[in-house]
């Protein structure tokens, strides 16, 4: 009660006397100062004294690579301090004709297509070097040249089938353990929830790693690593605030958030797979897909854990499956049709934030199941659950790494 009084006093201490008819003038004053400062900067150009004749800073990032019967097509993004001009293009240390669309200097942050009628060789590597008007060079490596698959209805369908295979199927399989797990005792419940935290912990690290990797390949002006962290924190805060509107999420709500987090992770993975399609990755084998599917089954069990005691309607299982697995299909389509590393980094960063939110919420849910608070987390079922969750994800991830 005393606290409340203190608050009221503070509130009345805020001066309100300035709110007369001319109080808006106090808004104009700072704006006028700002306007004057801008005018001074433009009118007197104080930066001129810093000019030492140095050439402008230039930067080029290649966002897409298309190899087809016309040769090589590259989508480049300029990141120079001033508009920059690609004057010549080398392929494998030889000058080649090229066409730029749109032509002319490329403004900071803008993109252009560079098309080179180069007879690339299947299975071999090529290096494209851009020479700008200042003579600066920027290299782009094509480690293995393979024709870029063309997106047709049939490839989109096949992508959808495989997206469902790696995204939706394992989640559904995991959720099918639901009836078997329903009879679980408190210790088993603790174990399963803790295992969910473990698998999400693995996904968090994995998602951040991939996000930073994409960020590294994006144009400098996107400030990749900073963007990843800010996007992750923002998505974490937004989802947490949204999830806690009506108290801490439990039951179906918590399962839904887990599904959202996993879904965003799968969207990022889908983008990457789609990009692999677009870039024409070499075929390596079906067992890798099976390995990934096995890897993702744990996700379904994780989603099922919070709803074992609430018996939700049957349709919600379908909804959760689509929420967690569906984005893999969506990501593959987007990735194969329109792709740039910064968007993949952003999607993965949002996913990382979502996963972090779910880890916190599942942890809080787990702690709330006992009256011992955080101390309730230091039990054998919980610690072994986390350990086994991480270990299972880590070991199954080995199946898809070579």
């Amino acid at each position: 009660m005393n606290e409340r009084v203190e608050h009221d006093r503070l509130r009345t201490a805020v001066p309100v006397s300035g709110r007369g008819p001319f109080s808006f003038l106090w808004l104009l004053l700072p704006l006028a100062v700002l306007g004057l400062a801008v005018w001074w900067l433009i009118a007197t150009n104080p930066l001129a004294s810093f000019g030492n004749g140095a050439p402008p800073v230039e930067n080029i990032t290649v966002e897409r690579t298309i190899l087809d019967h016309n040769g090589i097509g590259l989508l480049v993004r300029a990141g120079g301090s001033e508009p920059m001009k690609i004057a010549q293009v080398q392929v494998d240390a030889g000058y080649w004709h090229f066409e730029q669309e749109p032509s002319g200097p490329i403004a900071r942050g803008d993109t252009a297509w560079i098309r080179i009628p180069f007879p690339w060789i299947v299975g071999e590597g090529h290096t494209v070097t851009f020479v700008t008007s200042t003579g600066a060079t920027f290299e782009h490596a094509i480690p293995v040249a393979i024709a870029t698959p063309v997106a047709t209805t049939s490839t989109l369908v096949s992508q959808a089938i495989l997206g469902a295979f790696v995204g939706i199927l394992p989640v559904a399989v995991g959720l099918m353990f639901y009836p078997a797990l329903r009879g679980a005792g408190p210790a088993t419940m603790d174990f399963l929830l803790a295992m969910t935290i473990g698998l999400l912990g693995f996904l968090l690290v994995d998602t951040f790693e991939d996000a930073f990797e994409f960020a590294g390949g994006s144009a400098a002006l996107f400030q990749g690593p900073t963007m990843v962290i800010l996007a992750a924190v923002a998505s974490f805060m937004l989802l947490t605030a949204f999830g806690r509107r009506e108290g801490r999420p439990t039951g179906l709500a918590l399962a839904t958030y887990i599904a959202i987090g996993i879904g965003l992770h799968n969207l990022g993975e889908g983008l990457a797979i789609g990009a692999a399609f677009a870039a024409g990755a070499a075929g390596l084998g079906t067992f890798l897909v099976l390995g990934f599917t096995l890897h993702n089954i744990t996700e379904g069990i994780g989603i099922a854990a919070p709803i074992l005691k609430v018996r939700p309607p049957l349709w919600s299982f379908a909804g959760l499956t689509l929420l967690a697995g569906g984005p893999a299909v969506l990501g593959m389509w987007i990735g194969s049709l329109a792709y740039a590393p910064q968007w993949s980094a952003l999607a993965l960063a949002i996913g990382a934030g979502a996963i972090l939110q779910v880890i916190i919420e599942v942890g809080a849910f787990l702690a709330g199941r006992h009256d011992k608070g955080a101390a309730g987390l230091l039990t054998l079922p919980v610690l072994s659950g986390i350990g086994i969750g991480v270990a299972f994800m880590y070991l199954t991830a080995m199946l898809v790494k070579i």
Partner: protein
Amino acid sequence: MRRWLPFDLSRRGFLGAGILAAGGAALSARNAAGQATHDHSTMRAAQQASTAGHAAKQDHLTAHGAMMTVGEVDNARNGFDPTAMLTDWDTGEVTKRSDGRTVRTFEVTGEDKEIEIAPGVMFPAWTYNGRVPGPALRATEGDLLRIVFKNYGSHPHSMHFHGIHSARMDGVPGAGVIDPGEEFVYEFEAKPFGCHLYHCHALPLARHMHKGMYGLFVVDPDPARHPDMADVAKSRLLGTPENANWQEMAMVMNAFDTTFDGENEFYACNTVAHCYAKQPIKVDRNRPVRIYLVNVTEFDPINSFHLHANFFDYFDQGTTLTPTLKTVDLIMQCQAQRGILEFSFRDHEPGLYMFHAHQAEFTELGWVGMFDVVEAVS
């Protein structure tokens, strides 16, 4: 930071790869062995398509196909034209001393100048007389030379001549390297006859040479001093009827490192990459050709000259009147090495005959050109 491309050994790469293979399998309902065939046929089709596309475009392009810089260099802005440079000899101002000796005076200035070395690519050069290479100075054996050098550039410069002169005239620090705004007169006798060069010898040497401070320095033999080979000497001596029959050209093989990493981005003959490929050099098939060739390529130990469909006689350093190499189609020159090439297209049908460095890398980076052999040059 690792690459984001799917070719690296990361999970997503192999996942995508696996999906490609599995996709093929799922749609065509083939087994694993069938997949391999499927993938190979796709690749072969792509390769054929790629080659076909290339061939179709080649019809519209020159003998070097699409392997060429794009666009044209603005010769007017540069203030020099590589084609005009071929025959633009600077013979100086000739006066007679009281004792009857010929005095030949050249005026050369050192200037900073941004030049266009390939279409759209600017290079902050240091130049003699605003051009790279500098003026092709040409004198006659025995002339007294006075080269008045004024340094309008931003750095100390000099003119170091390959020839015979006194230590005071060497153009090295302490003997003719002058500061911006200063003037120096190099005086010496033109000898020995041959195909020489001059260049700035201020320090750091590689930077001053690579920036563009070099040029041809040709000393023609005096026929009176070589009575046993007077005819050959006359054919070399600029201004004689014998010499007028020859189609003489000045070529300086050079290169530019635009990124300052010790490797050249552009190679050329007379500075502009691909200039003689885009504008072939007209040659009269009925008159012999003589090329004064010098290599000033920085950062590479040697350069070379290869002529297509023909052979030539070569005079290493140009200091002999008989060839030092006979009937060759390729010579190589170390940095600062130079010589004279003599050949003829008399027995050839008209057409385009290529010449280039036979380091394929140099060719592909700009050092390639064509002789357009015609019945008569108008």
